[in-house]
C-alpha cells in the first residue's frame, strides 16, 4: 500500500477531491499547511513598515491507497490541481507497511 500526499492550492481542494473519488478513493485526510517555494509571496504593510508574506496557504491531502491505483490518483491530482503558475504544489508517494481501520480492526487493503 502507498501513501499519496498532495500539496495543492486551497481553492482547488474540492476539485481534487472529486477527481480522487472518481478514481475510486473513498477516504482522505486534509491539513491546512503553509508552503514555501518558488512562488513568491507578497508584501504587506502595517503602520508603515513592510513585511514579506513568504509562507502561503496550501492544503495537504493525504490518501492511503492500493498500489494499483497510485498512478491514476497522481494523474487525477495533476489534472485538477494545475493552474500552470508557480505554486501549484507537489505530489509525494511513499510506502505504507500497514493500514488498520479502527472501527473494525481490519488490516491491509480492506481497511482503506
Amino acid at each position, binding site marked *: 500500500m502507498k501513501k499519496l500526499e498532495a500539496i495543492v492550492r486551497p*481553492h482547488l481542494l474540492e476539485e481534487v477531491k472529486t477527481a480522487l473519488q472518481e478514481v475510486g478513493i473513498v477516504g482522505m485526510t486534509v491539513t*491546512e499547511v*503553509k508552503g514555501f517555494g518558488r512562488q513568491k*509571496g*507578497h*508584501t*504587506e*504593510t*502595517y503602520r508603515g513598515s513592510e*513585511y*514579506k*508574506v*513568504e*509562507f502561503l*496557504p496550501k492544503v495537504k491531502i493525504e490518501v492511503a491507497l492500493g498500489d494499483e491505483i497510485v498512478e491514476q490518483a497522481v494523474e487525477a491530482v495533476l489534472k485538477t490541481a494545475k493552474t500552470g503558475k508557480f505554486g501549484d504544489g507537489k505530489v509525494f508517494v511513499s510506502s505504507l507497511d500497514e493500514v488498520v481501520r479502527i472501527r473494525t480492526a481490519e488490516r491491509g487493503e480492506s481497511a482503506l
Partner: protein
Amino acid sequence: MDPVQTKVALDTLWVVVTACLVFFMNAGFALLESGLCQAKNAVNILAKNFIVFAVSSLAFWTLGFGLMFGDGSPLVGMKGFFLSGADNSPAMADAYQGVFASLNWTGVPLAAKFFFQLVFAGTAATIVSGAVAERIKFLSFIAFSFFLVAFIYPVGGHWAWGGGWLGTAGFKDFAGSTVVHSIGGWAALTGVIILGPRLGKFGPGGKVNPIPGHNMGFATLGTLILWLGWFGFNPGSTMAADAALISTIALNTNMAAAAGCLAATAVAWLALGKPDLSMILNGTLAGLVAITAPCNIVTTTSSVIIGTLAGVLVVGAVLFFDRVKLDDPVGALSVHLVNGVFGTFAVGLFATDGGLFYGGGMALLLTQLKGIAAVGAFTAAASAIVWYGLKLSIGIRVAPEEEREGLDAGEHGMEAYAGLTSRASMNVAAANM
C-alpha cells in the same frame, strides 16, 4: 433660565443625545456587516463602514445639507452650503429667519440641526456598504458614498423633508423608512445589480452557495447596537423633548423590533428547519426599519403587527433575492429596501389619522405609494448613473484573483486577525525573529 431658554436647552439636549445614539449606529453597521462577511474581507468592510461617516460628514457639510434643507425649489434646496447663510435658530416657526426654513419647526441651534441630520445621512450611506461588500473597490465605494450623501440623498430627502413637493403633497415618513432606509436600499440595489454577485455565490442550475459570515458575535453585537441606536433614530426625530411623543415612539419602536425578531425566528424555524441567528437579527432590523415611518402615528398594537409582518417579509425577501441571483451578503436589501418600502406603505394603512384601517380611505395610502415610487425611481436612476460612471472611470470591482484572496490583502495589504487565524501567524513569527 427663562421658559424659552429652558425649552431650547431641553430640546437641544435631546437632539444631541439622540444624535449620538444614531452616530453609534455606525458601529452597529460595521459589526453587523463585517460579521456577516468572510474573515478575509473583514478589514475592508470595517474600513468602508468607518470611513463612510467621515466622507458623509464632508459631503453633507459642503453640499448635502444645503441641497436638502436650504431654501430652494420643490425639487432641490439651493442655499446654505458649508452651513453658511443667514440663520437665527433656535428661533422657531414664524420667528425664524434664515435660509433653512424647512427646519424651522424645531427649536434648536443650527449646529444641532445639522449634526442630527448628518447622522441620518450617514446611515443611508452605510447601508450600501454591506450590500456591495466583498467585491467592491475601496476607492469606488468612497466615491459613491460621497455622491450619495452630497447629491442623491439630499435631493430625495428634500422632496420629503426639506420643503419639497412630496412633503407638500402630504407624504408621511416620520423618521425615514423611505428617506433614509429606502434611499440607502435603492442605491444598494443598483450597486448589487451593476457589480454582479460574488464569485462562487451562484452555482450552475440555480444553486445558491451560502457564504457564511465569519463572526456571529460581531453580528449580534452590531444588531443590538442598531436596536439601541433606533431609540435615537425614531424618538429623536421629534427633535424636541416632547415627553408624550418620545415615550410612545420609544415603546412602538421597541415592540415592532421584538415582533420582527420573533416573527422572523418563527418563520425561519418553520420554513428552513432551524432558527438561523442571522435571520433573527435581520428580523429585528426589519421590524425597526418598518416602524421608522409610522412610529409616531400608530398604536402600539399596530406596531406589533407591523413588526410581525416585517419579520415575515424579511425572510421571504432573503430567499427571493437569492433566487433572482442578486447577491447581498448581509441582507441589506431585504432589511432596508423591502421594509423601508413596507413601512412607508404601512403608514397609509395603520395611521390613526388618515390610515385606511382607521377610516381614512385611500388618499394617504396613494400619497405614500407615490412617494415610494418617486424616491425609488429617482434614487435608482441617479445611483445607476454614478455606479456606471465609476465603472467606466476607475472601475468598481476588484480583480477575480484579489476577490478570491480576499480584499484585505489586495486593497489594504493587511489582515483582520493577524496571528489569530493560522494564515498569518507564521509570516508574522518569521518576520519578527
